[in-house]
């Protein structure tokens, strides 16, 4: 595939978005019956589902920590989520992303309240169109809240990027593939803490500062939607 024009003459992106514009975002919580908490999140064409089980007993038991809950996290892409079939075996990328997502969640969950237990977080990417780890992190955070697990704050994930020299918000797959930089962040907007930060690409210091600011503004919008989504679940029951 040839590199497409990422920033058009009118300054808009290949899908017509402004540089600081998110894709259409959809989310819902409590969508699974079995899980203690669950969430579904869409960022444009990226579709992710997350489930949380726990706190529950740890098997095998020797893994249990005496002074806090264990968090176990799996980020996984469905084999049909990509254009070419993805092997269902966990790739090196998925292993790394499981780690950074887990560490982001550890930053907000009060694990010390549940010693000797585990909180299991499962993220399945159903369709990948850029920003799967950040959509996955948003979904995982919502699922944890839906499970009633005590935590400091919600986490909104979003990726910013540099495409054709322009810093843009919420990059999709094409922009990720042909752009110059992809910087996913996880942001606990209420307590103003960055809990996930990676940069894959080249940025000057000034560009980094600009990208981080843009990412935080984007994450704040997503954070607001997350809070509304959690609220809506209970309003819906009342209106029925």
């Amino acid at each position, binding site marked *: 595939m040839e590199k497409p024009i990422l920033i058009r003459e009118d300054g808009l992106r290949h899908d017509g978005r402004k540089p600081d514009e998110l894709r259409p975002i959809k989310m819902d919580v409590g969508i699974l019956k079995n899980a*203690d*908490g669950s969430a579904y999140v869409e960022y444009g064409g990226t579709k992710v589902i997350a489930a949380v089980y*726990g*706190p*529950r*007993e740890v098997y095998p038991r020797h893994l249990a920590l*005496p002074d806090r809950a264990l968090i176990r996290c799996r980020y996984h892409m469905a084999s049909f989520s990509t254009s070419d079939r993805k092997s269902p075996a966990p790739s090196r990328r998925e292993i790394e992303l499981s780690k950074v997502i887990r560490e982001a969640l550890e930053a*907000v969950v*009060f694990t010390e*309240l*549940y*010693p*000797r*237990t585990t909180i299991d977080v499962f993220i399945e990417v159903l369709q990948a169109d850029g920003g799967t780890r950040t959509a996955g992190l948003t979904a995982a955070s919502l699922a944890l*809240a*839906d*499970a*009633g*697990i*005590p*935590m*400091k*704050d*919600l986490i909104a994930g979003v990726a910013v990027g540099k495409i054709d020299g322009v810093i843009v918000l919420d990059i999709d797959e094409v922009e990720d593939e042909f752009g110059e930089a992809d910087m996913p962040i996880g942001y*606990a907007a*209420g*307590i103003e803490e960055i809990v996930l930060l990676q940069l894959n690409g080249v940025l000057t210091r000034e560009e980094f500062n600009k990208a981080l600011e843009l990412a935080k503004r984007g994450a704040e919008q997503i954070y607001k939607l997350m*809070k509304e989504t*959690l*609220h809506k679940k*209970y309003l819906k*029951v*009342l209106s029925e």
Partner: protein
Amino acid sequence: MKLRILVADRQIVRPGDLLAEIEDSTEHLEERIIPEKHIYIKNKKIYSDTIGLATITDNDVQVIPLEGVYFPKKDDIVIGLVVGVGITNWIIDIRAPYKAILNGSEVIEGFNPIQHDLRDYLDIGEYVLAKITIFDRTRDPVLTIKGKGLGKITEGAIIEVKPSRIARIIGKKGSMLNLLTTKTGCNITVAQNGIIWARCPDNNKLDVLVKAIKRIEEKAHMRGLTEEIRLFLEKELGEKREK
């Protein structure tokens, strides 16, 4: 400690929602969590740590959670399922992150592991109504069935609900539970771990009771829920009588 409370009573709050600001404290307050109130304090601000209902009393704010697994507490009455039998104790699933222990001597007078086979007294798959006597987060909870009404459950029906909704099913000063008992005529035992044991005069009454409980579970955050349940029970039981 004087608080400026920023939420309304019974307002739905989420993790990270600001509930109140501490106004008069001049000292530096360490960041800390108060798990039983589902709040944490940081930089003189009080936040919710979960999805729940803000509850304001006098000059205090806390959150009654709407979700979450059952977490054992000493003296809680629980209903547990026997899932394992050892030489000297039973393993009881109380829907908590920890399995509970019930010792043979609790059930069998003069218990002697050589003489007595625990399965003759309480077998896998049976329910017990018990009280938690020991639990401190470092050890598994220990149960007793010595107490009025405690012991093996041999009759009636078991209804499982979210443990976070138990407070609502009991109601303020037991008002909801009273309503359920008087209207249906069922004998109802509510355990803290989200299991309800009902003994009803007939199956119709049980059906209505189950429906009412599920309704309370779903609408736990609704204002005027007791009134709605009263109307619901009257309608359902009235209709059944006409038939």
